């Protein structure tokens, strides 16, 4: 499913710094038509920031973000809170950033299972219901590029699987590119073409391998990940300290873990830090 033509969106060594600290740095990725790219990584690893760079919400402070011109983009952010003063029904929300035909809106709502909520006020929805509504709105726009930031948070387990299947199906139907942020790696992986593991920088990226038993992987994403459909081999050669610095295998400490600092030990195309929980996520 790799794209033969130019990618819909690509980041080239892009990074964002705030108040003198790099939120994320040196990210290169591209999303092509019909491709699902998944970003994984612990809290604060720069997943959302990376997605926002790809969308043009955040301008990269170094490197570049290139989007294909005239793309129809749909975005499901991680957090949306609707002010109670806003009289906003689900039906009206479907047309938020552009008119979609009522047929498309209805089909999308059917697909995510929220047709019965059509006339409900958005602010009265539960977390999971609102998540489904946001996904329906994103899909109804028939996007070229779909960016989903933790799209199934708050959705019950069986619904979660159904929604991921839906995302895979939409990719097939619309031939759109999908940039997905998730921590539920073990469910997402089935339909994912490429995984990018972030932790302030790209730890590893590539096609997922179907190995479930890696202890490093289990340590990073918890015990349920043992049934994972695909994982990376994580040989951690460095640890992220709480202050953002990095301790390397040889015991030295540096400000970041870029390849050019001479501390990075690559293991083929897969490397990373299984023990990241000791670092930023602690």
């Amino acid at each position, binding site marked *: 499913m790799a794209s033969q033509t130019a990618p819909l969106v690509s980041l080239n060594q892009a990074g964002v710094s705030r108040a003198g600290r790099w939120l994320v740095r040196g990210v290169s990725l591209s999303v092509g038509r019909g491709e699902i790219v998944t970003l994984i990584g612990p809290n604060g690893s720069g997943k959302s920031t990376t997605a926002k760079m790809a*969308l043009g*919400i955040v301008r990269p402070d170094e490197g570049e973000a290139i989007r294909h011109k005239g793309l129809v*983009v749909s*975005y499901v952010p991680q957090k*949306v809170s609707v002010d109670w003063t*806003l*009289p*906003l029904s689900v039906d009206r929300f479907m047309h938020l*950033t552009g008119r979609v035909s009522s047929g498309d809106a209805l089909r999308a709502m059917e697909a995510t299972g929220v047709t019965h909520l059509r006339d409900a006020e958005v602010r009265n929805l539960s977390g999971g219901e609102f998540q489904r509504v946001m996904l329906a709105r994103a899909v109804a726009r028939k996007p070229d590029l779909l960016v989903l930031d933790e799209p199934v948070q708050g959705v019950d387990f069986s619904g979660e699987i159904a929604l991921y299947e839906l995302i895979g199906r939409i990719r097939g139907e619309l031939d759109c590119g999908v940039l997905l942020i998730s921590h539920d790696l073990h469910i997402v992986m089935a339909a994912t073409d490429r995984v990018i593991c972030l932790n302030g920088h790209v730890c590893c990226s590539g096609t997922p391998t179907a190995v479930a038993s890696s202890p490093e992987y289990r340590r990073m994403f918890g015990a349920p990940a043992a049934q994972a459909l695909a994982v990376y081999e994580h040989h951690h050669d460095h640890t992220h300290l709480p202050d953002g610095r990095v301790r390397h295998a040889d015991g030295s400490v540096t400000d970041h873990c870029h390849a050019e600092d001479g501390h990075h030990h690559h293991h083929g195309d897969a490397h990373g830090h299984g023990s990241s929980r000791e670092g930023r996520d602690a």
Partner: protein
Amino acid sequence: MLDDFFVRALVAGCGVALIAGPLGCFIVWRRLAYFGDTLSHGALLGVALGLLFEIDLTIAVFVVSALVSLALLTLQRRASLSSDALLGLLSHSALALGLVVLAFMTWVRIDLMGLLFGDILAVSKTDIALIWGGGAVVLGVLAAIWRPLFAATVNPEIAEAEGMQPDRANLVFMLLMAGVIAIAMKIIGVLLITAMLIIPAATARRFAGGPELMAILAAAIGAAAVSGGLSASLNWDTPSGPSIVVAALCLFVLSLTPLAGLADIVRARRAGRG
């Protein structure tokens, strides 16, 4: 018909209400009440500068209000103060500067009460033309930027990602606000314009099923408040601005009573059927 001062005031006041209603909805949704206050206090500085340089007062007020909102945008990006502190700073500095400049101009005799609280007697046919002409422009522009502005109100990031250019919509919205304040100043007075923006919108919230309906309802409720307030002003010789605001407040209180609960029942029934 327009020869009667009361009819003139009514026509002018309703014109203001029709513009203030929809814009006021955005003020309520975006929690910008204090921003409206700041702009209208800046209006007094506009009046003072207009008199000093002998330019049309409406234009002077529009320019100063627009400059105040641009100053706010710039300061928000640069300064380390919070938004409300910045707003307070701009608001009261502009008000004080305006009053000081006015006091210096001893050769100008100005009805300060009329400026602060509005004056129905002062409404001329030119004012009416300005209110309805300017109002049509404001509402036309608002209609044109409605979707991006509303999308940016719900969620700026979705709006930005999906190509709605929320920054542009926000800038246009601020200019519209400056325009409304310049237009409404004569009727409501600079101290109470924000009330005309907020109270009808807050009253409409209870009955509105959607944002567009809320904007229309707010305009209608504002017009009702203007009619009631101006009648009271005529009867009891009260200043027009405060009278209109009191009338709007009465409508708001009425919307909280059980009488208004009927609207909820009707809506619940409709939803049950749908």
